[in-house]
């Protein structure tokens, strides 16, 4: 059993995928999707994967990698705020806490003074995730949601996390790659169940504002850390990885016309559109990988 849990493919992919499926089933049969208990379950799983990949939290946190779990915890606290509080001020809150996270993670790097390509990419990723997250959380839930609506935020987190994971590992930051991979699998498990529910004629459950916020914040802060510190991460791939958040706003607006009329296809096409920058990020990272596309510690 311990050998199974010690296998990174299990903890990075299989286990979070199964747990994401379990959460989605819980939201389908046991708890309402907006229940704070479900938010707590997401939070517990998130912290489990942080602990598993980054190790126990250091006190006081010195390195940026030690700060990530505290940032995740801050995202959880905000995510557990009452829906009416989050609903009014989420965008503003997102801007403030994303900017604060970037400065906290990157102050040593910024104080270092050398404005190289890597740091320019990190600044761009910080700004793009801040704007993108504010745009995603600003989307109001429709009274009669379209078929794709419950999938938009999860698709953005999934695409960002998956692209970030591969860019991170190829950029010589393996642990953050594993963490983003776990997040992608967790959200992927959720999406899979919701899509099956929709195919069977049911209504897919949407994330509550709290879950949306804490998962967006977790994925984006880990991507920012990769951009700031992974020595070989491809700058273009990093920037592309942060763009799925922006495509969500486009899918709700100008790209709406590209979605087909057939209900089962709408989430698929919306997901593919959101994933386009992530796919480009992965291709860029692999093609221009500094040591070839060999994954794992050497």
């Amino acid at each position, binding site marked *: 059993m311990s050998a199974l849990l010690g296998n990174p493919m299990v903890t990075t992919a299989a286990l979070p995928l199964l747990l994401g499926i379990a959460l989605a089933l819980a939201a389908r049969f046991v708890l309402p999707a907006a229940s704070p208990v479900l938010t707590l379950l997401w939070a517990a799983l998130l912290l489990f994967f942080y602990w598993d990949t980054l190790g126990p939290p250091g006190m006081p946190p*010195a*390195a*940026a990698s030690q700060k990530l779990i505290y940032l995740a915890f801050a995202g959880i606290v905000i995510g557990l705020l009452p829906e009416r509080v989050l609903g009014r001020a989420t965008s503003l809150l997102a801007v403030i806490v994303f900017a604060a996270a970037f400065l906290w993670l990157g102050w040593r790097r910024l104080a*270092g003074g050398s404005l190289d390509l890597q740091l320019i990419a990190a600044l761009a990723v910080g700004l793009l995730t801040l704007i993108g997250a504010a745009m995603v959380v600003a989307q109001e839930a429709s009274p009669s949601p379209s078929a794709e609506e419950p999938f938009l935020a999860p698709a953005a987190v999934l695409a960002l996390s998956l692209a970030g994971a591969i860019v991170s590992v190829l950029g010589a930051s393996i642990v953050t790659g594993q963490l983003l991979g776990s997040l992608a699998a967790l959200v992927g498990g959720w999406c899979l169940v919701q899509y099956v529910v929709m195919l069977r004629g049911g209504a897919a459950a949407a994330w509550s504002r709290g879950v949306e916020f804490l998962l967006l914040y977790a994925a984006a802060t880990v991507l920012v850390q990769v951009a700031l*510190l*992974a020595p070989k991460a491809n700058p273009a791939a990093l920037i592309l990885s942060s763009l799925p958040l922006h495509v969500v706003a486009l899918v709700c607006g100008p790209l709406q016309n590209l979605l087909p009329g057939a209900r089962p296809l709408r989430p698929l096409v919306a997901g593919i559109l959101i994933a386009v920058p992530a796919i480009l990020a992965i291709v860029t990272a692999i093609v221009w990988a500094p040591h070839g596309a060999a994954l794992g510690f050497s």
Partner: protein
Amino acid sequence: MRTRKLIAALAFAGASILVAAAHADNYEIDGQHAWVTFTIKHGIYGIAHGQFDGVKGAIVMDKADVSKSSVKAELDVASIHTAFDQRDSDLKGPDFFNAAEFPTISFESTKVEKVDDKTGKVTGNLTISGVSKEVTLDVKLLNEAQAPWDATLTKAAFSATGKVSTADFPMAKAADGFGLGPEVEIAIDLEAVKK
């Protein structure tokens, strides 16, 4: 009268400082002749080796009272090499030495003890990735001599060994995540130029 006493006291204090300073020699680490190397268990297989090329620092050696000696040194994390580029990139990354955030590793002695005429123990704070841990190095003075080709050049050569654990620094996943260590054996050979 009071002025004379004051001058005498100052002269005595100054002379004492000069006598004390006469025993302490200042050295600067010669970066071109410094080998800071380490070995660490590599997974279930063998032993991996690495080296830092960028080394600088200062040594104060007081032969009359060794406890007054001190060492202050700094390693450039970006200068790490292990005979394989990809591994070097991994080691400079945030999973290990985190060069972008913490470009240097530093060591500052807090205690120097004499064992015999040529050996001693140097205890100090080793700071890696913003975390300081006390480390004791076994140090040997190999030689101290004037260069035969340059009468103005005097050098001292030292060897030092010690052990640290990756678990003490923000690279705790090195052992259970990557199967490295956690014990790291350090071996240092360096020359220092008398100033």
